[in-house]
């Protein structure tokens, strides 16, 4: 009997500045301010359920009943962190290209315009977690290296990812006990 195979996609949501928005003028002042403004936390209206609905709708619009049946039925968002706007979704192995394409074709969630970016595709959810943790550590280093001009924003940013790291440490402990 062959096992049912799937793919886990790690994605994140970026929030570019909107015209007439607060950060429109200061966004491009330095690489750090751009990064801080792109990696915002998401509103509570975005949760795994709404994200799954959005992805299914895009698959229905672009790939019709066939796409919605083959790819859409197997999609489920397994994890979404509102503070870091990062999530992991599961889909079937045959159709993960369609799911990734639907994330590219997405240009807004609710009222806010967003960029959704796939960071990693893997066969197990654990590798996605590990990749996410590694990435966030590197990002924090980049942000810390900058000058201390708007320390308030940086602290908030680091706190957001700090929680994620606590999550990482828990996992490491679990690994040890398994071995």
């Amino acid at each position, binding site marked *: 009997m062959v096992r049912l195979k799937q793919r886990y996609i790690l994605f994140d949501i970026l929030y570019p500045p909107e015209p007439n928005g607060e950060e429109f003028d200061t966004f491009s002042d330095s690489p750090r301010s751009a990064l801080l403004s792109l990696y915002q936390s998401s509103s509570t209206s975005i949760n795994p359920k709404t994200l799954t609905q959005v992805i299914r709708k895009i698959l229905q619009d672009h790939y019709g009943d066939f796409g919605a049946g083959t790819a859409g039925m197997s999609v489920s968002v397994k994890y979404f962190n509102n503070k870091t706007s990062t999530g992991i979704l599961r889909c079937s192995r045959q159709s993960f290209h369609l799911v990734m394409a639907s994330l590219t074709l997405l240009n*807004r969630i609710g009222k806010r315009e967003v960029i959704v970016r796939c960071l990693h595709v893997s066969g197990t959810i654990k590798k996605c977690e590990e990749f996410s943790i590694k990435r966030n550590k590197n990002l924090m280093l980049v942000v810390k290296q900058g000058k201390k001009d708007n320390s308030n924003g940086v602290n908030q940013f680091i706190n957001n990812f700090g929680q994620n790291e606590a999550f990482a440490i828990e996992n490491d402990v679990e690994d040890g006990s398994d071995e």
Partner: protein
Amino acid sequence: MFDLNVPWPVQTYNSPSQQQLTGLYNVIATLYCLGYNHLAINFNVQENVKLPYGQPTSINPIPMQQLRERFSEYPNLKLFSRITLQISDPSQCQGLSKLQNIFDIISIQPNTEKALQLATTNLDIDMISFSLTSRLPFFLKHKTIGAAIDKGIKFEIIYSSALTGPAGYLVTSANDNMTLSTTALLARKVFFNNLMQLIRASRSNGLVVSSGAFQSVQVRNGPDILNLLQTVGLDRARSKACITDNPEKVLISGRLRIKSAKQVIAVNNDESMEGLLYSNEGEDPVKKTETAGFTKKLSDTSSGRLLKKQRIV
């Protein structure tokens, strides 16, 4: 990664408003955060706009020096200038040779089959782009496209106009339901059709993927876009070259036009190859726009200076 199409917000010689300029800065910053570090600012010219050939210094409306100063804090970010000429009547494009030393990249957007024929055979250009969201008025033949690719001309795929803006999802009702308007559906349909034609005619060779984003929401991550193109039929093995190798070749061929004699010999011993091709910060804009062309003298290089000294001794 390379993105060779960051559009200059106005298509004429009028100066852009402050908001448009800030929008351009934001697009550049967003692209930089997504990992694109070689960007070309594209000045798209309609056919009826008269270029001021009389005064070479005012042909390029993009203040490159000012832009570079604005982004001096961004490590490894390189900015270039590019012009796209829209051509429908082949007899209209005469002064191409006068543009050569002013813009880093010269590209053409043909609107008729005749113009495409001319662009692929006679003109000295780096890239050909099509407006992919409206139906192409002619059939792309593998013979013409293949001949152009053999010559080294690349073909551009601009994705932003098909994914966002008027072609994107809109929120109409109060309950946050996202819908595609009929024009958006048509634009997406035509975009995929044109994409398929271009991929078929070029056999996945010599394609360049660029954003063409007027707002920072229109930008996408490079690998994601390639994945989308792969679902349409782009060869997986050749896809990565669309955002790395092919745009680099375009940039090199454009830069060599400025920096070399007949695109064959470049005089430079001080710097590495990359310095020769990419470091355009120190260029003298006045010298660059001389009608005689930017010719490097032997005395400009260290070894040249040595040669001169030897001759004197």
